[in-house]
C-alpha cells in the first residue's frame, strides 16, 4: 500500500516537473488539468462482459486477457515472462527439495560414521549441498517474486492500460478463401 502511494506521488512529481520544464507558467488551471489527467489514467474502467471475461483469462493465464482484447504482442510478452518465471520457480524449488533430501540422507550416514575420515567426508558433502540449497532457495525466491510481479503488472495493465479493440469479425474474406482453395482438393462425386 505504501509503495503504491509512493509510486503515485512520484508519478505526480514527475508530471509536475515535466510540465514545469515545458512551460514556466504555473497556474491553478495547470495543476487542475494535471490532476484530471492522473485521475483519468488511474480511473477504474467500466467492466462489461468482454472485459470481465478477459480479466478471468488474464487472472488464470497472464497476457491472455490482453490477447482477447486484441493486444497480441503485449499479451504474448506477459505470457512468456510469466511462464518463464514459473518454470524457473518450479525447477529451483525442485532442486531445493532434492538438496534437502540429499542432506537428510548424508546426515544419516554422517551420524552413523564409525571413523573420523568418513565423518569428515560426509560433513564436507553436507556443507557443499547445503550451500547449493541456499543458492536454489535464492533463485526460487527471485523467480517467484518476478512471477508474482509479472502477474500483478499484467492485471494492472489489463485494468488500467488495455482498451477493448472489439471482437474479431469473421467475414467472407477473399484472402482467406484464396488460401483455403490452395489447400483444397476437388473430389468428383458424380463418377
Amino acid at each position: 500500500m505504501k509503495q503504491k502511494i509512493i509510486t503515485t506521488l512520484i508519478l505526480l512529481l514527475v508530471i509536475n516537473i515535466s510540465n514545469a520544464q515545458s512551460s514556466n507558467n504555473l497556474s491553478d488551471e495547470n495543476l487542475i488539468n494535471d490532476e484530471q489527467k492522473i485521475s483519468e489514467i488511474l480511473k477504474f474502467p467500466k467492466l462489461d462482459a468482454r472485459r470481465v471475461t478477459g480479466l478471468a483469462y488474464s487472472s488464470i493465464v497472464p497476457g491472455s486477457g490482453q490477447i482477447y482484447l486484441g493486444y497480441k504482442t503485449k499479451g504474448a510478452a506477459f505470457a512468456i515472462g510469466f511462464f518463464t518465471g514459473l518454470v524457473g520457480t518450479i525447477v529451483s524449488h525442485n532442486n531445493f527439495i532434492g538438496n534437502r533430501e540429499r542432506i537428510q540422507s548424508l546426515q544419516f550416514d554422517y551420524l552413523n560414521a564409525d571413523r573420523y575420515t568418513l565423518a569428515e567426508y560426509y560433513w564436507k558433502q553436507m556443507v557443499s549441498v547445503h550451500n547449493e540449497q541456499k543458492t536454489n532457495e535464492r533463485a526460487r525466491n527471485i523467480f517467484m517474486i518476478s512471477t508474482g510481479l509479472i502477474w500483478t503488472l499484467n492485471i494492472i495493465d489489463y485494468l488500467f492500460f488495455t482498451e477493448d479493440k472489439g471482437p474479431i469479425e469473421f467475414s467472407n474474406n477473399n484472402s482467406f478463401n484464396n488460401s483455403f482453395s490452395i489447400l483444397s482438393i476437388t473430389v468428383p462425386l458424380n463418377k
Partner: protein
Amino acid sequence: MKKIISILFISFLIISCSKTEDLISPYHYSVIQKVSNFKLDAVDTTFTGKRRVRMSWEISDTSNLRYFEIYRSQKNPDNYKIIASNYKQFAFADSALPTINDSLRLYYLVFPIGTKTDVRTGVQVSFIGPPSDTLIVTVKKLK
C-alpha cells in the same frame, strides 16, 4: 479488486518462505583429538640383530581415548597395514620390518580410537579418530 491483487501477491511471497534449514552441529571434531608431535626417536638394532624403528607421539586430550592403532606402508598414501592394535602407550618400536635390500622407505600413521554414542541405539561404540601426520622413515641395511 486492488485488495484481491494485494492478497494474492502477499500469499505468493509467503509461499516462497520455506527456508533452508541449518545443518546439525558437527560432532566428529570433538570426539577425539588428533595425535600430535608424532616423531621418529631412533632407527637402531635389536639385540638379535634386527633393524628397529622407534617412534613416539602425544595427544592433548585423553578423556575419551581407549587405545591407538599403528599403520605402516611402503607406498604412501596406499597400502597401509595395521601393525599394532589396542596399543595404549605413547611410544612404539617396530622391529618386524619388511626385507631390506639396500635401504627401505617406510610410512607410519597413528590413529587414536575413542568412543561415541550411537544415534540409533544409544550405545557407546568405537570411533576411529583423525590420522596423525605421516612419519617417513628411511632404514638402511646393516653392512
